[in-house]
C-alpha cells in the first residue's frame, strides 16, 4: 500500500515540475533549485511533514525531499545544539547524499566517457 502512495505522491510532484517545464521559460535546473528551496521552506514551516507521512518515499525521493531533510536537520540541530546546530544541522542530515554524489560523480566521470546524442 505504501508503494502505491509513494508512486502517486512522487508522480504528482514530478507532474508539477513537468507542467512548469512545458508552460514557462524555466529550465530543469530552475525546477531543481526551486523545488529544493520549496522543500526547505515548507519543511521549515512544518507543511511538508504531512506529505512525507502520507507519501513516504514519494515525498522524500524528489529533490524537495532533500530540501525537507535539510530543514528538519537544521531545526533539530538548533533544538539540541543551539546556534552551532542551526549551522551544522542541515548539512549533517543531508551529508550522506552530498558525500555520495561527490564521490560517485567523480568516480563515474573517471570510468565513463560521454557519448554523443543521436
Amino acid at each position, binding site marked *: 500500500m505504501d508503494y502505491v502512495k509513494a508512486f502517486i505522491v*512522487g508522480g504528482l510532484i514530478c507532474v508539477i515540475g513537468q507542467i512548469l517545464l512545458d508552460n514557462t521559460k524555466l529550465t530543469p535546473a530552475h525546477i531543481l533549485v526551486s523545488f529544493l528551496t520549496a522543500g526547505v521552506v515548507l519543511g521549515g514551516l512544518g507543511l511538508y511533514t504531512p506529505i512525507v507521512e502520507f507519501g513516504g518515499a514519494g515525498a522524500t525521493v524528489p529533490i524537495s525531499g532533500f530540501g525537507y531533510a535539510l530543514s528538519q536537520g537544521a531545526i533539530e540541530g538548533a533544538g539540541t545544539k543551539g546556534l552551532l546546530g542551526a549551522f551544522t544541522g542541515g548539512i549533517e542530515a543531508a551529508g550522506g547524499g552530498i558525500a555520495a554524489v561527490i564521490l560517485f560523480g567523480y568516480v563515474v566521470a573517471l570510468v565513463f566517457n560521454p557519448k554523443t546524442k543521436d
Partner: protein
Amino acid sequence: MEKLNKKEYEKYVEGKIPKPTYVKNIIMAFLVGGFICTLGQFILNYLQSLGLNESSAASFTSIALVFLGSLLTGLGIYDKIGKIGGAGASVPITGFANSIVSPAMEFKREGFIFGVASKMFTIAGPVLVYGIGGSVIVGLLTLLFKGR
C-alpha cells in the same frame, strides 16, 4: 522593412511554435517519477526490515538512488530516461545525481581539477547553496521563534 514591433512579433512567434505534447509529457513524468519514488520506497522498506532506524535507512536510500542515477548517467542511459520522462527524471534525487555526473564526465577532457572537479557543480552548485543556506536560515529562525 518597417520597424518591427517587438511585442507583436513575440506574440506572432508564440503562435508558430509547435505546442509541447502536454498530456503525454504529464503522463510520462507521472509514470517515470512515480516509478523512481516507488523504487526508493522499496529500498527504504528493505533497509528498515534489516533493522536500520528510520533516519539511517533514509540516508542510505538517498545514497543508493544517487549511486543508481550516477551509474545510469555513466552508462549513457539516464539522458534517454530524461528525454522520455522529463521532470519525472529530473526532479527525483537520481536527476540531481545526473546533473552532477553529466558535467563531470563532459569536462574530463579539460582535466581533473578544472574539468571534472570544477564543472561537477555547474548545476548542483545552486542546489547546494540554496539548500544549505536555506537550512541555516531555517535553523536560525527556529532559534529565534522557539528558543533553545
